[in-house]
């Protein structure tokens, strides 16, 4: 799996890997832009997105791409534009200008085809509170056309450790339990692109740790591309291959967590975050 090789690969790439890449390029990969990682065809390409809400700018010239098997963290203060970016990718909001391409398709023109292979979980939405956990998952399994819904649902409930809650009324779940249910829903269709807006908000440290490991595992096993927002810097350091720091709708810095930390001469992502947010627009600081 090209994505995994590269994610775990060292900077000085062994010749064998490079050869394998060439071969892979030759036989399997459709032509198209290549990411800065030299990975496979990007799953998601966001190109110069701009979004105004009245007079205020929510996104300014936002560009990035996401390859198969890559977890990218979208970071930034409250109001930086993270959710807006996700909404545009998902087609919930349109961009004022710029474009999005998913699996090489325009999601506005191929909405259904794109959404079948994508999924989303957010701390800001709910599943119908008056249905049971299992009922909700069965409904969404039907919507996503899951072939064998019963074993799939069972597997996901087990994986997120909420199998004992399957007959519980969804509205009666604790915040952390319902977050895990959202993740089950988001994994039902084995998405190739997963968008998670603060998925670990309200999880206790134990479950948050488990969720991070699960995300890491499914990303490695299935080569899912994950776009992730979180205010928990521990999440970001552990889960993300790459982070994109946004400030007032613009990208301030980008790179692996380690690269970003060293670029800012700080010791942790948390310190980088605070510096970016307090110092405002700081392309200079980052350099």
């Amino acid at each position, binding site marked *: 799996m090209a994505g995994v090789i590269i994610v775990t690969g060292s900077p000085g790439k062994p010749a064998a890997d490079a050869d394998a890449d060439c071969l892979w390029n030759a036989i399997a990969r459709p032509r198209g832009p290549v990411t800065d990682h030299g990975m496979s065809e990007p799953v998601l390409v966001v190109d110069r997105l701009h979004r105004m809400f009245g007079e205020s700018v929510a996104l300014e010239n936002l560009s990035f791409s996401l390859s198969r098997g890559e977890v990218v963290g979208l970071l930034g203060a409250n109001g930086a534009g993270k959710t807006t970016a996700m909404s545009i990718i998902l*087609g919930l909001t349109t961009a004022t200008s710029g474009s999005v391409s998913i699996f090489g398709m325009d999601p506005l023109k191929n909405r259904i085809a794109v959404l079948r292979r994508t999924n989303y979980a957010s701390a800001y*939405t709910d599943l119908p509170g008056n249905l049971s956990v299992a009922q909700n998952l069965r409904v969404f399994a039907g919507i996503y056309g899951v072939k064998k819904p019963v074993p799939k649902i069972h597997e996901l409930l087990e994986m997120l450790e909420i199998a004992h809650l399957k007959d519980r009324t969804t509205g009666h779940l604790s915040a952390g339990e319902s977050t895990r249910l959202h993740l089950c829903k988001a994994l039902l269709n084995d998405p190739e692109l997963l968008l998670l807006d603060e998925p670990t908000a309200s999880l206790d440290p134990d479950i948050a740790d488990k969720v991070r490991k699960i995300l890491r595992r499914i990303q490695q096993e299935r080569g899912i591309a994950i776009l992730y927002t979180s205010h928990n810097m521990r999440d970001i350091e552990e889960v993300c291959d790459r982070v994109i720091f946004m400030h007032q709708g613009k990208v301030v810095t980008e790179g692996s967590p380690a690269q970003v930390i060293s670029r800012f001469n700080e010791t942790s992502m948390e310190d980088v975050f605070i510096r970016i947010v307090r110092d405002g627009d700081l392309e200079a600081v980052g350099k």
Partner: protein
Amino acid sequence: MSPGVIQALVLRHLYLYRRNPIRLVELLFWPIMEMMVWGNLSVWLDKSKGGAQIPTFIPYLIGGVILWDVLFRAQQAVAISFLEDVWTKNLVNILVAPVRPLEYVISGCIVGLLRIGVTVIVLSILAASAFHFNVLQFHWNLVPFFGLLMLFGWTLGLISSALILRWGQGAESLAWAVPFLIQPVAAVYYPIGDLPWWAQTLGWLLPCTPVFEGMRGVLSHGTADLRLLGLSVVSNLVWMAFGAGIYLYVLNAGRRNGTLTRVTSH
């Protein structure tokens, strides 16, 4: 269009009723209450028949009440199944899932049909036992009228959903008011000929007006005017296209000005 998706969306409502039987009460409460009131009135009228002649406006009024209820309930069913997703903040999950707007609307209509089915069965049993009223002796000529009113009710439900999608839950009461906006010119309880010309013009633009006019025809001479039925069919199709257009317009406008995410999440 995917039958699997529609089935899943309908399943969501079946689960809802199964899990929350109290919702069935809402489904049956109003029809049963109305049935008792109008059934008792009919019984009383029947008894007093021997004496004075019943004025013709009485059956007109009852017919109007019943048919109006069909329209109103159909509108409500579609609007409620939409609101159900707004109330539970589930709409985003639907909007980011591979669900076409048409599949969503059709599932709402199927739920509406199931609701009406349950209501009709329960009411028929009740009517047979309480008032010795046999549905099979019913004016069968009225059945197409029921269907046409239901169609228009669904269209109004779609328009109500669009209002909520555009203005959020604040527009909920407006959504309930939609059928009553048209009631004065729809000739529900009185012949359209008695309205001023401009109200008549407005009235004839609605698919339900020929139905109410036709209903009075059936009640007074037993036959349905096919021209009225035809007019209602055509008008229904035009209105459905109009309702669908409004819904899609609002959906896309919501994407453009960013209100869609505001209405659908918290």
